[in-house]
């Protein structure tokens, strides 16, 4: 009886740890994406002329993207496929392609930051780097 109870307790603990492990990277990667969304919204306002252009702020947008690219690949462990996530199965089916997409985004964000010197160059760079959003989400996210 005691043994069964103990076994059940151990089982519960393992299950809890497993769930906790899956939830944490999901929350972290969603936080990074939300931060990107906010940066992109501000950048879009500047590119459209709805907000005054600020060179330091424009370049910091690309820094926000680079924070994501430095952490993103490690935030999709095998136990985070399901739950409150829209991550698509391709992330795990084709890890090489997923990492390549992150690497491309990183290279594009670095190039965008380097080439941004005024509003005109910012518009071009921002337009190019945000192509990554659509292409990556198409393949690696459910919607």
């Amino acid at each position, binding site marked *: 009886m005691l043994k069964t109870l103990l076994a059940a307790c151990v089982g519960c603990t393992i299950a809890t740890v497993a769930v906790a492990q899956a939830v944490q990277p999901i929350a972290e990667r969603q936080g990074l994406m939300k931060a990107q969304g906010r940066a992109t919204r501000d950048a879009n306002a500047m590119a459209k002329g709805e907000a005054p252009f600020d060179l330091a702020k424009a370049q910091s947008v690309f820094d926000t993207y680079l924070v994501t690219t430095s952490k993103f690949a490690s935030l999709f462990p095998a136990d985070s496929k399901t739950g409150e996530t829209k991550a698509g199965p391709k992330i795990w089916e084709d890890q090489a392609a997923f990492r390549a997409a992150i690497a491309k985004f990183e290279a594009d964000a670095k190039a965008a930051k380097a080439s941004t010197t005024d509003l005109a160059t910012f518009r071009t760079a921002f337009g190019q780097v945000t192509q990554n959003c659509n292409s990556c*989400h198409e393949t690696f996210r459910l919607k």
Partner: protein
Amino acid sequence: MRVRSWLTGAAALVVLGAAAFWALTAPATFTALRGRGDAPRAGAPDLDNGRTLFNAGGCSSCHARPGQDDRTLLGGGLELKSPFGSFYPPNISPDPTDGIGGWTVAQFIRAMREGVSPDGRHYYPAFPYTTYQRLTAADLGDLFAYIRTLPATPGQVRAHDLAFPFTVRRGLGLWKLAFLDGKPLAPDAAHDAEWNRGRYLVEAAGHCAECHSPRNLAGAVDASRRYAGGPNPEGRGTVPNITPDESGIGSWSRDDIVELLKTGFTPEFDSVGGSMAAVVRNTAQLSDGDREAMAAYLKSLKPLPSAAPKAN
């Protein structure tokens, strides 16, 4: 004696039933019951209008050859998962043997409106003729002419991979009698020209409802919850509610919808993914006026609570 007459009666019923099924499911029966609709206009087709309909109708989302970026290579072959099995949309490039290069405009219009191939077989409603049936014949003629200007892409796609009884195409005749009404979209005088244009783009071409609505057991769009979102027909996850409810896009402005159709960004600057990414590649090609019209129509939909299941 009594047993024999009973048996004769039962046999007669089976024969009658089979005959009724055969008659009711014939593509010609559907045409006879629903009529042919308007005819295309004479004279030179408007290729610009055809291109607009090609983009609004999202032909390339399903028919472009997968694994390459050219939206005009309509060789087909993308796998479309569904609860009934996997569909492989065919080659609709102007290739004369593998595509639709040998078709007449009348055959094209019949395919788009009645879901019937030139050789008289029913198409599965994964091909959204339930939406395309509302396109005018003039627009269908222009669309056909535009597709014929695109590159011929040789090669046939593999057969659909479906489970029985969905392998029996003939049964689709009954499905059509239940779910394909054959009615054109008459302009609504209670609304302005922009709204009517938006409705036409959304309801006759864009087939937004085909994914953004839950479906009934027969696989038809649930009319009472049209646009309320639902489970993702392609697998895990959900499709969002696009009615102006708080569980849908009630907080979105008209400009927010226009922006999404142009760039793929939501008001939170999330970029839409999955199959919606391909939809945006099409709607990005439309005119600002057409995107505005679609937004005006979507904002006018009846707000409905989300039909998507809560859990992923």
